[in-house]
């Protein structure tokens, strides 16, 4: 059964230095508040996993929390580059960043394998690409035992911790999210531990079209964090702050501007959702 705790407690209890952490959310419901709390608690040597590292991973990378990134598309959607990510890859600032790079289809299937208790998944993918040519350890050819056809296997992802944001949980810790639900269910089911931040805890979850429910017993910690995915959006609660994504570009381009942002917006702020 999920424990309902503060966000600060959830991060303190679930995320350890050196962990492999997947914060998922496909444009929608990105767990920004939880990511900021990870920076604030100064976790180090993390391997971060995410299909679409966007601003939150740019911030974690710039803050020096990250040793390795496992990903499939790292950009500022609709704006351009993630400059902290680029600075780490191109100039090893604030430290070198190891990459394990995949396609979306590969990453999605790696989570599926992890959620399914299988060591690998099979797909049609990677053939002829530079990623295949790079000879990544997590991609291998596999032969169909019925047809002899050669397909591609990707190894399972089983993060130490999955962190996602959802619209609601009930007081028993059952979680409900709807709209674009991405790969969040798979990430939580694949992970050893999980944190779900929610817009609100309600007495009872009403069924909703298109909603995904994560039963309480599949989640480690639920933390109320209203606005917890801003500047991303939470369908039914608030819209995406597109101006923030544009405004991030000049901050991230400049190391000093980024340091000032960190000091003011992260370390200068108490954990906003009832932290200790």
């Amino acid at each position, binding site marked *: 059964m999920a424990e309902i705790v503060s966000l600060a407690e959830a991060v303190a209890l679930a995320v350890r230095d050196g962990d492999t952490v997947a914060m998922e959310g496909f444009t*929608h419901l990105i767990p920004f508040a939880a990511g900021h709390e990870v920076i604030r608690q100064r976790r180090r040597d993390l391997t971060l996993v995410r299909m679409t590292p966007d601003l939150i991973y740019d911030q974690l990378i710039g803050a020096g929390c990250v040793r390795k990134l496992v990903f499939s598309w790292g*950009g500022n959607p609709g704006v351009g*580059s993630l400059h902290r990510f680029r600075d780490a890859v191109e100039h090893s600032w604030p430290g070198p960043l190891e990459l394990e790079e995949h396609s979306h289809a590969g990453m999605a299937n790696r989570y599926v394998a992890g959620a399914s208790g299988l060591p690998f998944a099979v797909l049609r993918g990677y053939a002829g690409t530079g990623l295949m*040519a790079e000879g990544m350890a997590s991609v291998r050819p596999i032969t169909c035992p019925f047809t002899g056809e050669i397909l591609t296997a990707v190894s399972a992802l089983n993060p130490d911790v999955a962190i996602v944001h959802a619209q609601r949980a009930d007081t028993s810790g059952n979680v409900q999210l709807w*709209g674009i639900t991405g790969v969040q269910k798979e990430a939580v089911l694949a992970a050893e531990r999980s944190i779900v931040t929610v817009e609100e805890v309600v007495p009872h979850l009403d069924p909703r079209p298109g909603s995904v429910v994560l039963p309480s017993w599949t989640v480690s910690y639920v933390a109320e964090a209203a606005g917890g995915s801003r500047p991303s*959006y939470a369908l039914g609660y608030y819209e995406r702050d597109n101006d923030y994504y544009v405004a991030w570009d000049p901050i991230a381009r400049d190391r000093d501007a980024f340091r000032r942002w960190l000091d003011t917006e992260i370390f200068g702020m108490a954990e906003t959702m009832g932290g200790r």
Partner: protein
Amino acid sequence: MPVPDYSSDEMMTVSAARALRDGITCFVGIGLPSAAANLARATHAPRLVLIYESGTIGAKPDRLPLSIGDGILAETADAVVSVPEIFNYWLQPGRIDVGFLGAAQIDKFGNINTTVIGGDYAAPKTRLPGSGGAPEIAASCREVIVVVRQTLRSFVERVDFVTSVGYGSGPGTRQRLGLTGAGPLKIITDLGVLEPDPATQEFVLTGLYPGVSVEDARARTGWDLAAAAELHTVDPPSAAELTALRGFTASAKE
């Protein structure tokens, strides 16, 4: 010819929209393709089925979605499925007619690079966002159309990194790799339209926008670009196309 009252980007988007037939299914990549696909649906192709890698099938946005995960896509879709399902059940089996992709770099065989430019993979000069859904869109859609601005930096003899395979190193590559789709049938740029030569699979110029010359296109192409015998001039945007496009753009800025 009078000075046109539209930009080359507008011409490109209109030209790309026209490439989508009504009633087909289109897997829409991030960036320029989304604007063109939505323009097609707003003009000549009202029954165009838009599919985004965020999991939305049959989205019918009345404004330009700001990203492939815009809330309006989920709210107007026939179905919203998980990201694993969109790749496994919908893209991979080859049930999507057209994959509509952008590119940072593209070469004469239609291979696309959105990963790294310069240096090598481990120590690149410029780190780009990476693959996203493009490699499997390029592999598995029945056909692919690429929308990209034409520059010497983007149109290269050989891409620095093959993010998504076009025709690889030429005839036979796709078959050898087991790629089920036909590959890129058009590159639509801000100068005109390129299509693969049937024999060599090298992209050649088959269409030019009004006021653009073959020499203009060659000057912005990093390989020895040939013009097809049947080279034609693309019709300029109609008033209806421009109105629809500008309506979208205005609503996107609101």
